[in-house]
């Protein structure tokens, strides 16, 4: 029997991929140029109400722990005092954390002493901000052996600004 061949048999159907590849490379270049690599960042809330007289005073609120941070002329920390106690070890922030933990006794969570306690930061005006962050970090919590964050005190505020 004679074999009937279709007209298109044997021809390869191709399409031009050049525009698509061009477009993909354009996209790659755009994304590469707009890529910025940053370390991840986190926030510490500070409690700064506009007016002290607003709202009822919480009777369960403990008196704030006062942290006094003194700076030298170049803004470096020279003294850190917690209440009346001078923290004079080589790492005052580690000592501060130990002191806070001894006060809170790791009593954390809603209604705990950690939630009722407040810290007030009284800093020299020219103190480098990095020391403030280290102090906030020391009183806010710590990372335990399981690499979990244990929160201590969350209410942090600044004292009125010192002129300097």
């Amino acid at each position, binding site marked *: 029997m004679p074999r009937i061949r279709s007209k298109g048999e044997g021809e390869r159907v191709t399409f031009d991929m050049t525009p698509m590849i061009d477009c993909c490379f354009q996209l790659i270049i755009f994304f590469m140029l707009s890529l910025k690599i940053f370390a991840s960042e986190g926030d510490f809330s500070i409690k700064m109400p506009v007016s002290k007289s607003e709202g009822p005073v919480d009777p369960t609120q403990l008196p704030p722990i006062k942290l006094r941070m003194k700076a030298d002329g170049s803004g470096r920390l020279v003294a850190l005092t917690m209440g009346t106690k001078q923290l004079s070890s080589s790492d005052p922030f580690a000592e501060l954390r130990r002191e806070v933990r001894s006060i809170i006794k790791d009593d954390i969570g809603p209604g705990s002493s950690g939630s009722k306690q407040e810290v007030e930061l009284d800093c020299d005006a020219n103190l480098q901000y990095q020391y403030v*962050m280290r102090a*906030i970090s020391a009183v806010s919590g710590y990372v335990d052996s399981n690499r979990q964050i244990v929160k201590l005190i969350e209410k942090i505020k600044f004292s009125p600004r010192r002129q300097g």
Partner: protein
Amino acid sequence: MFGKPKRTSSAVTFDMTPMIDCTFQLVIFFMLTLNFANDEQNEMIRLPSSELAKPTEPPWEFPITLQVTSRNMVIVGSEQVPISGLRSVLQRERAALERYNRAPSHATVIIRADRYAKTGAVQEIIEIAQSLKFERFVLRAKEKEV
């Protein structure tokens, strides 16, 4: 004559599939890692680090990011102003909030201060914001590996 070379009509092609696969993988990678929100992070600011600093989830509602340089200048968006000029910038932000029927107390003022900025400058910024009825403040730090 038998010296004539044999000519073939087949075109020389190469398989572009692996290259296209690879290209798409790259496009997807860059698309997923691109974060336009990071445009608020200014390279001039060297944030202090903390092992407790973890990314905030969900992100703040109505954030106003104030970046404080080591020379105690404030960067808001693409604008750089001295602290004395911050009030007018915050008044503008407040007016923008009011257009959305939001009080300044609904906004969160994010302070990204350089580690060498003066604490007094940060406090002054907070005072200016407080005078315009902003109440929520957060201090931003870089995550430190433990």
